[in-house]
């Protein structure tokens, strides 16, 4: 058992994956000597060499495209996209090549690639550094998409994603990198990667979140409890495939659901969850499924980002509204 930040847990998970399999290579901008702008790959090049931790030229399509070739040669590339808003130059390679090669080749070509993307806002950054592009990847058949929310999951999930034979977009809540500290038990049995999880049981309403909004929802549940309302919080962990089994089970008990994410609400993951829960739990619902998310505006300048990001008050307000129907 070690107390770690989320950043340190990812670093330890990457290190373990590299020790376990010498085909694992890390690629990206500044991931080597510097250890990444967030220091997630700190010390790895020193210990594993520059053939396995590769400082690449500054070209995201080039990074992902060459990682495809390495994967075809039998490697397991772990690609770091420096910030969410910089993934778009690689979008074509991700959507047209990474996602489709297995299908195109009738399963003969596997692309066991992990694309790590620090995502979300709240760090006071300039434009393009605070985005939540997950829906675009969830909407792409052939990709799997996961998001960690805490150090213990981060340590295990990064290893599981690397071990998977399919391409995985791995979303890391960057604002929690250095703030969230928790005990990580490296020898604890791992939950399957493709499962969501109830992180706080409750009986009056259900909150569903992933990545950075899980802690927002946990805080909301604490406050709600003081007011006599019991909220269940579910951490999705995996966005594609979506594991809604615990969500359906929860909604059948509570009858009320609020989905919380930083991404724009329109056609976001919350919209998909609302549709599926409506199909599965129609007769259990006491209120429409509500979404709390980023507004349908571009991400705002840092001084007003707190207005854009779902916070405790907006979550609790949505919960109140589900009781108003």
């Amino acid at each position: 058992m070690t107390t770690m930040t989320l950043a340190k847990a990812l670093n330890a998970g990457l290190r373990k994956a590299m020790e376990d399999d010498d085909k694992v290579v890390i690629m990206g901008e500044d991931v080597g000597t510097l250890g990444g702008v967030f220091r997630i790959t700190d010390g790895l090049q020193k210990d594993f060499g520059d053939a396995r931790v590769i400082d690449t030229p500054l070209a995201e399509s080039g990074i992902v495209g060459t990682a495809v070739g390495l994967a075809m040669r039998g490697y397991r590339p772990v690609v770091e996209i420096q910030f969410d808003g910089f993934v778009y130059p690689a979008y074509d390679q991700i959507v047209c090549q990474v996602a489709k090669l297995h299908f195109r080749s009738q399963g003969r070509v596997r692309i066991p690639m992990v694309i790590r993307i620090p995502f979300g806002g709240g760090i006071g950054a300039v434009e393009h550094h605070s985005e939540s592009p997950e829906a675009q990847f969830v909407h792409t058949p052939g990709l799997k998409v996961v998001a960690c929310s805490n150090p213990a999951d981060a340590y295990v999930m990064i290893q599981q994603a690397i071990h998977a034979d399919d391409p995985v977009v791995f979303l890391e809540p960057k604002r929690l990198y250095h703030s969230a500290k928790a005990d990580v038990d490296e020898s604890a049995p791992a939950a399957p990667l493709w499962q969501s999880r109830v992180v706080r049981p409750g009986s009056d309403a259900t909150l569903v979140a992933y990545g950075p909004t899980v802690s927002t929802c946990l805080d909301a549940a604490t406050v709600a409890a003081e007011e006599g309302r019991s909220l269940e919080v579910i951490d999705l962990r995996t966005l594609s495939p979506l594991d809604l089994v615990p969500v359906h089970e929860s909604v059948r008990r509570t009858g009320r659901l609020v989905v919380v994410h930083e991404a724009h609400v329109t056609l976001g993951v919350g919209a998909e969850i609302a549709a599926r829960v409506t199909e599965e739990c129609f007769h259990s619902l006491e209120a429409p499924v509500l979404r709390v998310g980023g507004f349908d505006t571009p991400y705002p300048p840092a001084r007003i980002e707190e207005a854009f990001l779902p916070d405790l008050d907006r979550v609790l307000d949505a919960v109140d509204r589900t009781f108003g129907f």
Partner: protein
Amino acid sequence: MTDPVFGPAPERAPDPELVQLLTPEGERVHHPGFDADFSAEQLRGFYRDMVLVRRLDIEATALQRHGELGLWAQLLGQEAAQIGAGRALAPQDYVFPTYREHGVAWCRGVDPVRLLALFRGVDQGSWDPAEHNFGLYTIVIGAQTLHATGYAMGVQRDGLVGTGDPERDTAVVAHFGDGASSQGDVNEAFVFAASFNAPVVFFCQNNQWAISEPFERQSRIPLYRRSHGFGFPGIRVDGNDVLATYAVTKAALQRAREGQGPILIEAYTYRMGAHTTTDDPTRYRLSDDVEHWKLKDPIARLEVYLRRNGLADDDFLAEVAAEADALGERMRRECHALPDPSPHDLWDLVHAEKTAELAAQQAEYDAHAASFEEVS
């Protein structure tokens, strides 16, 4: 065009000297850098390859006209560039093609019927890339050049560059065209290959046309010179001369296998046919141009050379012609017999590890399909 401060601008493509070993008239000429001796058997082999590949192309075009293929991307005129590049490969080398590399596919032992299956809409590529060391056709222009570069970086990591063992040292070929040379991916591939000294040969068939856009719209300078700005050599070869294409590619591959890094070959050729069977080149180019390039035909010049030097007789030429007829007949027959895929299989192909979501969607489809069967 010399600016007093910035100096000279690059000139707009004065035709540089091509590496050529066989003139359009069928004269064997010599080149100081790429001279090579070719055995009679080798020369007859090139001829046979080119005739069969041209037949493959003509047959596929006819199948499209008869409604058996949805589309066909013609290689007519580019036989020498592709056979030269294909025959220069060592077995362990790996090739990343565009969607027009039927001649290279031929050299790598991919059955032409597999190419038909793709353009018929039966599948999206049904050969095993690992079996042939020949990747799947890539339709997004230039994307495969990055895959080739990454694959070459993998070869480096496997320690298969510069060992001195000709059966192990490995090079990778990235095929692309003049249109693709404008794509970001191709330029990024040049940057990565140069930065990591990857054993990759960039083989550009400059067939002068990107659908309707002439080469001049893509570049102000000869294409092979692009590599100089990225820090590796480039060379222009007569792409209608199978001997020169073979010799230059072979030397470039050897150089890459030895660890001397990437190289750009511009095979200067001409797309005699349309971009694909949906295209109408009479809307954008002059027949004079096509007539001019007919005089540079890759097969005719080799046939002249073989006959004039007594390296092939009527019997050999008739034998190849009969082989081409048999290939055409087989392609027609097997194309008609290609079975349609089953929609049921779609969900099995998306991932290595099928998700519960996809399994549920598949079951839903199966039930839907079965409901029709019950009625009928």
